């Protein structure tokens, strides 16, 4: 029997406020353990939490950018459970009246656009961080708790179970990250846990409308992990069903080293959160005017920006998608083409050599040693035939080291392209004389041998001959 996976994601995104959601403790990542805590976030008796205005503003922005309806009457609730990373024994979250509901994002997988519905977005506080004594939580005799992260503001974005493959889940998470980056409400540094996903997956016979029993995997903080954990889990459930067994509803942990999911039996039997309205916080009322004002602050979002690059710059849908996926890259691209350079050439250089060098150096494009201005200048040098694409790679490497003006580099290193026909002809003649066999091959019908001859001419000119002219001249001379 063939099965279909039904996947839903809960994405937790930390918001980039200076202070926590209910107190004035700093949210800075990487501080010494238990130094960003106060009576409010430690849940000491008698304290009164007060909502950080910025959190509501950011949540509204996220709600609108993810096409949600804003609940004009919203409130906080207590979600009760015992876990040592939660000092109050309840998490202040939102239950029946979240700040936003009924949104969607569109994802592109295999050239098809698919709409993934968003059930709700609610505001809540993050929990503390556990450091386990053993290698994993399962073989630790005790754990240590750092409450610095407790109370850092989060929005939880809950999707409908609209995804069918690990690839779609990844694309969805990438899109949500991209939008949150564009609207600048989260740092989205996945390695610092700014963005984490809980993934639910169940299987059902293809074509069936019924939902199977699901397993949940919590706290996946990279796209790769989401994809790998899902692929593994889909296969695991498929094997169980194939053998006539039943999937157990449970939380499983993803072991990234071993590449498997493991059952995580906690002491809590059935989850029963016993939500109750938070008596220490008052309702949040949002007016139409406020919503309109927040809407005005939204920048051009990834989809609109991608369409613009396709329509106005003539980029392919794929290239436009890659460039607009990150706001930083989209802005870099815009800065390059503002200098009136060819958009496709700019896209190729940004997605090619620049991205390759940035990846290798572990840098983001905002930290690029090559400025947009200088990259634009270099592309112009290619466009006006001053340098060949091949030489441009050398110039680019120089710029990567120094971010010097490419015109200067070309002059200093004597890299100006030879476009003088006579000069090229001289080299071509020498090469033809020195390589009788490939010449004979070509004349005998093996036209591929021209590639070798072009290479020889380029080599003799130390890469400076204009390749198009070399090609043309060689062809002319070989057919004489």
């Amino acid at each position: 029997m063939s099965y279909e996976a039904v996947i839903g994601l809960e994405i937790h995104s930390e918001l980039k406020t200076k202070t926590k959601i209910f107190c004035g403790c700093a949210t800075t990542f990487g501080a010494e353990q238990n130094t960003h805590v106060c009576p409010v976030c430690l849940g000491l008796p008698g304290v009164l939490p007060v909502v950080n205005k910025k959190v509501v503003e950011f949540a509204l922005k996220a709600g609108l950018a993810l096409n949600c309806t804003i609940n004009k009457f919203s409130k906080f609730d207590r979600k009760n459970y015992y876990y040592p990373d939660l000092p109050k024994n309840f998490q202040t979250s939102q239950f029946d009246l979240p700040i936003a509901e009924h949104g969607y994002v569109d994802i592109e997988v295999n050239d098809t656009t698919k709409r993934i519905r968003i059930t709700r977005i609610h505001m809540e506080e993050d929990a503390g961080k556990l450091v386990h004594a053993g290698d994993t939580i399962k073989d630790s005799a005790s754990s240590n708790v750092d409450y610095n992260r407790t109370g850092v503001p989060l929005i939880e974005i809950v999707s409908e179970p609209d995804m069918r493959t690990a690839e779609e889940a990844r694309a969805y998470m990438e899109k949500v990250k991209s939008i949150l980056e564009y609207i600048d409400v989260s740092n989205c540094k996945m390695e610092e846990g700014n963005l984490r996903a809980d993934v639910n997956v169940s299987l059902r016979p293809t074509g069936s409308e019924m939902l199977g029993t699901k397993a949940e995997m919590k706290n996946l903080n990279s796209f790769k992990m989401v994809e790998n954990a899902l692929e593994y889990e889909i296969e695991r459930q498929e094997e169980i069903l194939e053998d006539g067994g039943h999937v157990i509803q449970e939380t499983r942990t993803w072991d990234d080293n071993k590449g498997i999911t493991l059952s995580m039996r906690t002491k809590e039997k059935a989850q029963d959160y016993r939500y109750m309205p938070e008596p220490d916080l008052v309702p949040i009322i949002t007016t139409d005017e406020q919503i309109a004002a927040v809407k005005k602050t939204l920048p051009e979002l990834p989809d609109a920006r991608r369409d613009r690059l396709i329509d106005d710059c003539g980029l392919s849908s794929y290239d436009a998608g890659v460039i607009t996926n990150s706001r930083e890259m989209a802005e870099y691209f815009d800065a390059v083409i503002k200098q009136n350079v060819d958009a496709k050439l700019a896209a190729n250089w940004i997605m090619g050599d620049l991205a390759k060098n940035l990846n290798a150096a572990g840098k983001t494009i905002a930290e690029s040693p090559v400025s947009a201005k200088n990259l634009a200048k270099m592309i112009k040098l290619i466009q006006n035939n001053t340098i060949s694409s091949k030489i441009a790679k050398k110039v680019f490497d120089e710029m990567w080291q120094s971010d010097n003006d490419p015109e200067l580099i070309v002059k200093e290193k004597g890299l100006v392209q030879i476009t003088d026909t006579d000069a090229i002809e001289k080299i071509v003649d020498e090469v033809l004389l020195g390589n009788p066999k490939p010449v004979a091959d070509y004349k005998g019908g093996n036209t591929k041998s021209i590639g070798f001859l072009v290479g020889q001419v380029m080599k003799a000119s130390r890469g400076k001959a204009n390749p198009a002219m070399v090609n043309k001249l060689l062809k002319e001379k070989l057919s004489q």
Partner: protein
Amino acid sequence: MKITKQTVENVAMLSRLNIADNKMDKYIEEFSNFLEYVDVLQQVNTENIKPTAHVLPLQNVFREDIVKSSLSREAALANAPEQEDGYFKVPRIIE
């Protein structure tokens, strides 16, 4: 809803409370009384009454996003039953 020994045990587990066996009958009776009273409340007609989100007539109480000083680590850990290297130390979590 009929309160049984299992109901009381479940609520006690969720609240991390130990209930001695000789107190069980007493709790079953008290729980039943609470719920009977709630049943009385349920009979009130609330059709035209807005649900209460908060008992005070207040809304939109916010603070600015400005950093205030936190507790010293010593003060934060002062009441911890166990601590280690500046952390709160807790017993094994997973069964």
